[in-house]
């Protein structure tokens, strides 16, 4: 695995270093940045993007892209809310339904890409629109709400947002998901084939491996992750508005890229992705603590993405120069 691992570790170190520097900067420059509420905020905002980003990391490592995750997440949440508020289903069934909706969209994406042969960009762009439209159709363009801590079924927020003692529960789930996906990518056949497909899909196929099925699995994981993200989005925001969700996929993809996963496939890690998620979250909250309004957050997030990718390209170039004799 040699220099690939070394490269990823370097990128991770770099990303982690940037995270620490960024945090220290805002601790100094911002107001009330190093406080419990801000820290909880940083964590709370990271949950749903974190799940989205981890899921799409799988797809990006195969060399593909999933643009549908943001709207699929909202669609899943709307289906859950519809079942909960209109059909009076028990909340736990609604949670399972959310996961199933996300997974189904992931499966659909995977089939479109690997069996029908659509380019990932187009297939998932289509799914983005389909899922956004479907969410509006099902709910009649009405918002759907989830219980807050003060309502019946308060356990929803207690389990998925923060516990009685204000413990950030989402962090526990996200951390567990990180560990599970890390193991899948690094220790299982599925993970090995996902990297291999991203590195050279045809060589994998000609090794007698059913490459397209393994690639399909990456899209399913991405959809599943969007379904799980829907739970944490619902717990954090409680009001789900149809027609939203666009843009979250780009935040997630930005986090993946900042974390050192290559858009051309074959290289990447979920730990890098999580660091990328926190960099973006710290940035957003930090700018707020400096009193800068929302447009600045978007602006600087864009700058960070460009700088991160630029540094990645520079390093790859250097590595190649050295290698070429």
């Amino acid at each position, binding site marked *: *695995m*040699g*220099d*690939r691992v070394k490269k990823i570790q370097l990128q991770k170190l770099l990303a982690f270093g940037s995270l620490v520097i960024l945090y220290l900067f805002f601790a100094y420059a911002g107001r009330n940045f190093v406080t419990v509420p801000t820290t909880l905020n940083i964590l709370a905002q990271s949950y749903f993007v974190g799940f989205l980003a981890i899921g799409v990391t799988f797809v990006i490592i195969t060399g593909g892209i999933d643009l549908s995750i943001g709207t699929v997440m909202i669609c899943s949440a709307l289906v859950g809310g519809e079942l909960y508020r209109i059909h009076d289903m028990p909340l736990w069934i609604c949670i399972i339904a959310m996961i199933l909706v996300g997974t189904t969209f992931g499966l659909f994406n995977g089939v479109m890409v690997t069996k029908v042969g659509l380019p990932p960009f187009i297939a998932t762009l289509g799914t983005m629109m389909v899922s956004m439209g479907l969410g509006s159709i099902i709910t009649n363009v009405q918002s759907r709400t989830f219980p807050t801590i003060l309502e019946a079924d308060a356990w929803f927020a207690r389990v998925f947002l923060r516990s009685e003692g204000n413990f950030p529960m989402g962090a526990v789930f996200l951390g567990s998901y990180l560990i599970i996906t890390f193991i899948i990518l690094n*220790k*299982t*056949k*599925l993970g*090995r*084939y996902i*990297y*291999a497909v991203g*590195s*050279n899909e*045809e*060589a*994998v*196929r*000609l*090794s*007698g*491996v*059913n490459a397209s099925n393994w690639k399909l699995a990456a899209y399913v994981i991405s959809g599943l992750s969007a379904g799980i993200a829907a739970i944490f989005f619902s717990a954090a925001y409680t009001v789900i508005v149809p027609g939203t969700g666009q843009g979250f996929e780009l935040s997630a993809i930005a986090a993946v890229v900042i974390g050192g996963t290559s858009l051309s496939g*074959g*290289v990447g890690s979920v730990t890098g992705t999580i660091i990328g998620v926190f960099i973006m979250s710290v940035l957003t909250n930090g700018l707020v603590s400096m009193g800068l309004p929302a447009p600045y957050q978007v602006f600087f997030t864009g700058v960070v993405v460009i700088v991160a990718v630029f540094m990645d390209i520079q390093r790859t170039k250097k590595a190649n120069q*050295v*290698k070429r*004799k």
Partner: protein
Amino acid sequence: MAEGTVRGEFLLEMNGIDKRFQGVHALKRCSINLRAGEVLALVGENGAGKSTMMKILTGIHSPDEGEILFYGQKVDFKTPKAAQDAGISIVHQELNLMNHLTVAQNIFIGRESKGFFLDEKSINQKSAALFERLGVKIDPQEKVQNLTVGKQQIVEIAKAISYDSKIIIFDEPTATLTDAEIDVLFEIIAELRDKGVGMIYISHRMDEIKRITDRITVLRDGEFIGTKNTAQIEIGEVIQMMIGRVTYEEPKQASTVPEGAPVVLRVENLSSVDVKGISFELHKGEILGFAGLMGAGRTETARLIFGADKRWSGDIFINGKKVEINSPADAVRNGIGYLSEDRKRFGLAVGMSVSANAVMASLDNYTSGGFINDTKIRAVSKEYVEKINVKTPSVGQTVKNLSGGNQQKVVIAKWLIRNCDVLIFDEPTRGIDVGAKSEIYKLMNALAENGKSIIMISSELPELIRMSDRILVMCEGAHTGTMPIEEADQHAIMTLATQKS
């Protein structure tokens, strides 16, 4: 010797050039020199340091030690442009042309006109003058994509000349040319030589080197081995200098397959868009050569057997039993392994490690409950790396960093670990240097002796005749004949290979 040489005997001297890349000692105090009006062949195996030497000369790399004298003056080119401005040009192996631009636009790219507006007329005239000088007919206003590869090469040469180059480097210029185009190229080279241009000619083709060059400089493992006058040296001697060891040159006299060896693979009436009703049998321990010209359908046949492409009709029998092969996964399950002609595209995930590639076809055997067993994988990879002598610092090494021959061995290891009985080698020695070639030959012979059955596709007839027990010849998708090795010679094979069915 032509005029143009000022102080000293040589137009160019590169003395004691030393270069390291992160621990790799690419050049060890290497020296070459070039006179005006001569063609110097620069030869050596892949990785001998030819390219690095030329990259230093053209300002792409700078040497760690050593000096470059050009017209007796010490020079230090910091950029490719600096070298080009001084009069040193290179005609690359891969053509660096913009297909959608015209010939003239390509030649004068970056030098279109003095002002803001383009001056198409002037560059067309200048290009026409260049072609006249070279004695070739190419329309400067033609789009480059409409030219044959040979003419594109001439455009590159014209570009080099347009810089008023004193030195032109040709990097394997004939690799993609036809015989007629090679003749034109050689006429141009002869003409440039008469005009006093010094040329460095990099090639693996000994016959061409013998034909066109004045002196031969041999490099090996980054070291200068020697320079000889072309007229006074035999090709065998040059090869000996290049490899520094005796090659494996034992042609096969008779089939080594025992009489009555069982048929392992039988193919009946295989056909697809490129393949027309191919039938043959492959015996245990046999090497069956597939001969034919480009586009004869050999690779396509192999891919059909391997299930990589869709077949229209035909049956495949393994050990006498009919099998359904509709995907590579089916083929592998039936013990067939395919080593593609294009390793990097179809054979390897070059960004991954040696061990990851080695177990790519048999990962199932190294996982339990979905979890991969890295210890076992490393162990088996190590075993085969040693067994077939893959030169790699460790099994964790990224395949990208290995030489072509060693990459090929990794592909072989992949199929050996899968324990395939039928191996299809498609151009197994393409792009591999002489020394590594003979190792691959030895390995294939050893495999056949151990009862593996091999189909060998090759465009190099001498290699095919040396290795095969029988040779099957194809032409335009059809099977035009099969001959035992005793009857096979280049003439007989070529007759069948050009015989329209």
